[in-house]
């Protein structure tokens, strides 16, 4: 009847919500063969994860409802199988790993047991299950596997946790592994390692790999074929090369155009005096040195990017400069005055010149305040900026400036999408007419197309208002398009700094080279070269 290992035919899933019925996927079809990697590419809300949840019987019904379609596994329709039959398949024949391994591992049980549980749930004896768990932990590269079996998830790093998830999913050598954004939460060098591990394991077992991702780079690196989804529909299917070079659907083209790292690089201008001079900044957390003496200058109107992986200390710089935390030692001179010795009162006054935009606008905007209140709160705290009578007018102006409309002032944060919320956060920062905005991973949580829009907005503000940006990011292509100069950080130290062109075209420090080599490009051909370069670096 069918030759495919897994085939989804005409699947439609809807959810009953307070706002009415949401059609998450609408008659989608795709298939996966043995030994193949199929990517499902889409942005948030595209429905890319829903078919995976349907395959694993993880959709809660109600509120979910499968209204049509078939999911054929080796020719048999899973939607007609009983819950018990499907449970027997889960983990044994079809396995799944998730984006956030910390949340998806049970915090109160040792990881060795959690891996062994997969085998035990399918009738294997305890001794055999534990032996297998140990072998798997060694295979996925957990150091000192035997001792690590008794440890708990919080005692591992993010990359190790994802390796543990993989070990857990592969315990019974499944025919299909579904990986839902498996590397999104990971650092770029770790991402490359995890993707290689998945590829190696696929070669060993011949399993089919279903890779759900929003990242064109991941598709270019790992996929044999890709399905592009938008608004619950499959809009295009093809190999990564076909999609990259000959995309026919406008949405695919839009996604490709939005992928950062393709624009012209900026050339920093010499001249204006430094507005922020940081010297020998240190931070110690009870013996752990998060920052080991960092020095740099920032000029008026300049965009300085701070890049590095998690734990490199890049966000610590922002928190110390803004006095959200106290530095252990060092100075940070803002227009000649040391910020680090100011009294809280003096600092409060200076804060209007230095503003911050955070990563997660959902958490950094007070859900009980309207947009008008969020933006005008700045003027409540600094009453000398604007007389109250002019607030509505100025709020409307700011909303217009960040690409929202004045009617939005009456609404509350939950009524906006992620990208719109970040625009509100930017409008809030602009309300104080700052000279410097510190963006801490301000676009990391946004979809690619939204990310491009927000970066455009920031660029426009930089040109029109002459605002300087301290742009903290882990995403190198975004930095390449947006920054004038770049600081590369590793383990609390600056390993390299220079103009954006120098960093991206002639990186000197080995760490910068590794970071660049690990980054994923949306062009499959460029990515193939990079992969070769990465393997060469690893070989050395």
């Amino acid at each position, binding site marked *: 009847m069918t030759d495919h290992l897994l085939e989804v035919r005409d699947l439609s899933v809807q959810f009953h919500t307070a706002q009415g019925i949401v059609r998450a996927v609408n008659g989608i079809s795709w298939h996966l063969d043995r030994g193949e990697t199929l990517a499902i590419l889409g942005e948030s809300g595209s429905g890319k994860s829903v078919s995976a949840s349907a395959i694993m019987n993880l959709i809660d019904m109600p509120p979910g409802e499968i209204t049509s379609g078939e999911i054929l596994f080796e020719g048999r329709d899973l939607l007609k199988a009983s819950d018990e039959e499907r449970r027997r398949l889960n983990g044994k024949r079809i396995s799944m790993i*998730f984006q956030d391994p910390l949340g998806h591992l*049970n915090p109160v049980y040792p990881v060795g047991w959690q891996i062994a549980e997969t085998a035990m749930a399918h009738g294997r004896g305890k001794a055999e299950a534990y032996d297998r768990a140990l072998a798997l932990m060694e295979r996925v590269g957990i150091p000192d596997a035997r001792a690590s079996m008794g440890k708990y998830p919080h005692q591992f790093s993010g990359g190790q946790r994802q390796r543990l998830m993989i070990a857990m999913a592969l315990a019974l050598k499944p025919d299909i592994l579904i990986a839902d954004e498996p590397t999104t939460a990971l650092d770029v060098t770790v991402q490359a390692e995890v993707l290689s591990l998945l590829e190696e394991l696929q070669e060993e077992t011949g399993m089919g790999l279903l890779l759900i991702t929003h990242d064109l780079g991941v598709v270019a690196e790992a996929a044999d074929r890709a399905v592009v989804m938008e608004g619950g529909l499959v809009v295009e299917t093809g190999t990564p090369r076909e999609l990259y070079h000959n995309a026919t659907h406008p949405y695919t083209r839009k996604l490709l155009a939005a992928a950062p790292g393709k624009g012209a690089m900026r050339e920093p201008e010499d001249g204006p005096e430094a507005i922020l001079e940081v010297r020998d900044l240190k931070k110690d957390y009870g013996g752990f040195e998060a920052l080991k003496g960092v020095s740099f200058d920032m000029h008026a109107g300049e965009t300085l990017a701070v890049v590095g992986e998690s734990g490199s200390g890049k966000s610590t710089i922002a928190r110390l400069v803004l006095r959200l935390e106290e530095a252990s030692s060092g100075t940070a001179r803002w227009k000649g005055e040391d910020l680090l010795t100011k009294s809280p009162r003096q600092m409060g006054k200076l804060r209007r010149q230095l503003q911050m935009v955070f990563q997660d606008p959902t958490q950094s905007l007070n859900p009980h305040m309207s947009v008008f209140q969020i933006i005008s709160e700045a003027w409540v705290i600094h009453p000398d900026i604007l007389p109250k009578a002019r607030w509505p007018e100025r709020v409307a102006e700011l909303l217009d400036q960040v690409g929202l409309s004045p009617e939005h002032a009456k609404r509350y944060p939950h009524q906006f999408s992620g990208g719109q919320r970040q625009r509100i956060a930017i409008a809030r920062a602009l309300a104080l007419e700052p000279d410097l905005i510190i963006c801490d991973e301000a676009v990391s949580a946004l979809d690619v197309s939204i990310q491009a829009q927000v970066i455009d907005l920031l660029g426009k503000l930089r040109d029109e208002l002459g605002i300087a940006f301290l742009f903290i990011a882990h995403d190198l292509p975004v930095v390449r398009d947006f920054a004038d100069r770049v600081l590369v950080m590793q383990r609390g130290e600056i390993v390299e700094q220079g103009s954006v062109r120098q960093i991206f075209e002639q990186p000197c420090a080995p760490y910068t080279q590794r970071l660049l080599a690990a980054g994923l490009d949306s062009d499959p051909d460029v990515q193939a070269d990079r992969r070769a370069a990465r393997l060469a670096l690893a070989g050395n």
Partner: protein
Amino acid sequence: MNGMLGKRAISSLVSLLALIVLVFFLSRLTGDPAALYLPVDASEAMRENFREIHGLNDPVIVQFGRYLGDLVQLDFGESLRKARPAIDVVLEAFVWTLWLALITMTLVTVAAIIVGSVAAFHVGRPFDRFASVLSLIGASAPDFWIAIIGIVVFSVSFGWLPTSGTGTIWHWILPISVLFVRPFGLILQVVRGSMITALGSPYVKTARAKGVKNRPVIFVHTLRNAMLPVITVIGDQAAALLNGAVVVETIFGFPGVGKLMIDSILQRDFNVILAAIMVTAVAIFIMNILIDIAYALLDPRIRT
């Protein structure tokens, strides 16, 4: 884990010390003990004599030192009404209260976890609705009212259970049942809410994706995580019972600490009151440490 427990024990000891200071000075605020203890028509010479004997003329700080010294030796003085050491009177009553609290809380915990878990697994279905109504009634019904209704129905009308006192197992049933109601309602609510959150958590999704059966998903993966907030409430409710279930003990003539305190206050038996406060404070202090240990056993993240 030892470090954490050590810290908690020290902070609890500090609170205990603060309580001792408070009790000492507050009890001095209730007036001149000579006026309180001696008959109204006692002469000034008798009063002076009384103050001299009991060291009430010494500076307050000296009195406090003496009080502390006595505390360490568990010497709270004599009970005025019973003519026995106050600590003996209190400990005797406390054993009754401890048993009452222990049995009640064990029953409450088991029942609330089972009913709450099942309700959480069937959110919105009839069983869940029924459990929610039950817990709301339980959490809000006043215990004296339940006690009286219990007596009227089971003791007076049916004549099945004794109205008050102790002696047989039948005497325990009404007090335990009445004390059961409120903590059961409260803890049931917390178990239900906490289980619903845990059932929707990512690690439960992982367990399902691994093909783990329903029962271990609930009792192995979910329950242990869901118990963390529940333990706090259990501790809270148990503390209230250890303090002496004043109303219920009085209504049923149950010879526990709660009834003893009421009697001692009415009879101005100060030594017994002070001893009772200290004994229950120490009991709650020990129980808090047990709660901390339970927490650490359940959650490895707290052990470090």
